[in-house]
């Protein structure tokens, strides 16, 4: 049987560095991975949407995950994203994850199909069977069209592997539902601007793309809330982070911002694959400004100022 995984801390869905032709720049990815390990995050996700999985073939995704697993070399756990439109592709990714001894898989609703809750649950159980690894569910109705509702959550309980959910709906009622009625499913924050609320309701982990380039700041919020239980400090950090959340979530250029953020920290991330385009100068300037203020504010807070 698979051991249950406890998700504690910051889990970073790693970006995929590309050159201008859209080829993976492996050296750059290795540096991103090393940087994440060095900066104190608690786990890495390969093949998440932040890694632009929707632009990648199954073979590319497996290659990326294997490379990440290899470079992590046991220093941090690896979660492999299995979200695809086609169930057989998700199964192939799940099987690949098991073969490479990934620590867990991330299982999402297939986009576009708009499955019923029963269909979605059976799909998850099928993918789960292929890996027999701990499962983090990924609820993102904004992109998938459906919620992982109560019927879904009740049905996936047939598997012992389902142990966490990355909740990205943005609906605070979902946080209440999960915290109160599904305490056996570890709730992981997947909605950056609600991180404080998630921690207040007992979440112990946060899957955040922003930690690609601001790992220390994300870890600081996690530590204040989840480790120290100091929500006064947590609120100050969160408040300092809110301008970034606005830029990330409301600008419609999420991945572009994250990639530029990575470049700001001195690493190579390159442009996103089409159809997305890199940030223009104004967007870059706005992001840089926000990040600068954020970093200095949080540094002051954590220094006890």
């Amino acid at each position, binding site marked *: 049987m698979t051991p249950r995984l406890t998700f504690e801390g910051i889990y970073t869905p790693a970006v995929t560095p590309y050159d201008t032709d859209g080829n993976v720049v492996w050296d750059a990815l290795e540096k991103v991975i090393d940087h994440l390990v060095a900066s104190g995050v608690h786990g890495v996700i390969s093949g998440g949407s932040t890694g632009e999985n929707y632009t990648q073939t199954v073979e590319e995704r497996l290659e990326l995950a294997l490379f990440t697993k290899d470079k992590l070399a046991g220093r941090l756990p690896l979660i492999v994203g299995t979200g695809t439109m086609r169930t057989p592709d998700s199964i192939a990714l799940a099987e690949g994850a098991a073969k490479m001894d990934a620590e867990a898989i991330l299982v999402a609703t297939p986009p576009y199909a708009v499955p019923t809750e029963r269909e979605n649950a059976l799909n998850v159980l099928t993918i789960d069977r292929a890996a027999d690894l701990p499962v983090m569910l990924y609820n993102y109705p904004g992109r998938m069209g459906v919620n992982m509702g109560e019927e879904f959550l009740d049905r996936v309980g047939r598997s012992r592997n389902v142990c966490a959910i990355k909740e990205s709906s943005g609906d605070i009622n979902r946080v209440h539902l999960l915290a109160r009625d599904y305490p*056996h499913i570890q709730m992981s924050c997947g909605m950056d601007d609600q991180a404080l609320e998630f921690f207040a309701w007992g979440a112990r982990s946060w899957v955040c793309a922003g930690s690609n380039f601001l790992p220390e700041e994300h870890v600081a919020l996690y530590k204040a809330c989840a480790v120290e239980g100091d929500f006064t400090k947590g609120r100050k950090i969160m408040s300092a982070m809110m301008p970034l959340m606005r830029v990330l979530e409301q600008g419609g250029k999420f991945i572009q911002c994250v990639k530029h953020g990575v470049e700001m920290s001195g690493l190579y991330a390159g442009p996103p694959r089409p159809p997305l385009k890199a940030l223009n100068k104004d967007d870059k300037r706005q992001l840089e400004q926000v990040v600068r203020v954020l970093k200095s504010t949080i540094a002051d807070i954590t220094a006890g100022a």
Partner: protein
Amino acid sequence: MTDLLTRDEYKALATKLTLPVNAFIDGSYRPAQSGKTFSSVNPATGETLADIAACGSEDVDFAVIKAREAFEDGRWSKLPPGDRKDVLIRFAKLITRNRRELAVMESLDSGKTIFDCETVDVPETIHCLKWHAEAIDKIYDQVSPASDDHIAMIVREPVGVVGLVLPWNFPLLMLAWKIGPALAAGCSVIVKPAEETSLTALRLAELAMEAGIPRGVFNVVPGTGPEVGEPLGRHMDVDMVSFTGSTETGRRFLHYAADSNLKEVVLEMGGKNPSVVLRDAENLDRVAAHVVNGAFWNMGENCSASSRLIVEEEIKDALMERILAHAREWTLGDPLDPEHRVGALVSSAHFQKVCSYLETDADVLMGGKSHDGAYVEPTVLEVDASSALAREEIFGPVLSVLTVRGFDEAIAMANATDYGLAASIFTSNTKKALRGARAIRAGTVTVNCFGEGDITTPFGGYKQSGFGGRDNSLSAHDQYTQLKTIWVDLSDDEDEAVG
């Protein structure tokens, strides 16, 4: 039964089963919040069947919250009795539809013979649930003979959130004995199956949901006694615990209740049940068949097993000859072979405990050997009244024989025990039969047969065999209800009314 399958067919069925592994709380399967599991082992083979959610006090707390919510909002407790009846009958039908799967699961999990599972455990489970379902809307409340100026109603209300703690010897049937009346009464239940045998309770919870029992009403929380049983017993928001198992554990539940919220406690515990055979017993062949059945049925893992034979010396040799002949027909081996009447003991720990009783100076009249770390031969021993074999509950296929001279000594010997669950008396003399039945201090006394009565008769014990109530019959409903008096003043005269 004519529709039993062959051993190979049962083996094939066993490989196809999907075994439930998670707790069932608030209408869905859930792993333990700690993520811990424990292995459920097939005692006949030693193989692990499944890794079951090892729940803890946090899961108990959650189940209680959900059971309480369900109880208070009335989604089940306030349904018209006839509606509850319909759902429970649908539930019984679903069990019938899945009876073969349940029988095989039960045999694999407990070591019980498939023969017993198919012919006793599963059909009796269905019968029990149907009986209580049918009874729900036929139980009337009362109006007391109060004065003309008053009307007094005596009504029964469901007791609330109930913890049902089960033994491993009849995992399905004991579940039915408890959930039948508890659900019929309108309670919300939290079932703690025995650690050794959780599978069928977990599967039944799913069938209950399918039948229409609302979420939160029927919860199954598997785990150990200290991790689940004790938190349930000590919980401040559990209204009652019904426990079947050892006297030692039963005693603990009384402590838990006293230390917490004084919850109601009903205990059904051990036995060292006598079969008294008087010299005028008719048809010793039939007597022998009953004694053997009483002692060896379900491998003797039965609180009402007739494990003490008390026989008058005049007929002892004649009876023993027949008993040994009958006992030889109880073939032992693979529980999934429908030819076998004696299967594996429930666990290796229990096997060791039973075996320890076989290392004795007592005369072994038959059996006495064990096999493969799981099987104990049906064993007949001539024992001394003061020996542990005559006093302690062995819970294995071991019949202890005691010889007496006369009726009075037989009754005194029958009563010379801390237990008082069941007893049998065999005689052709009606007066002696009835005098004996009255004199023996036990919850059930059968005459000229071994038995436990049926669903229509109360089952429970005197002395250290029982406390606080009875399973089966309408008396079982009483356990899961509270009695309320509603006293109404009808008088016109205000002075009198307050006086």
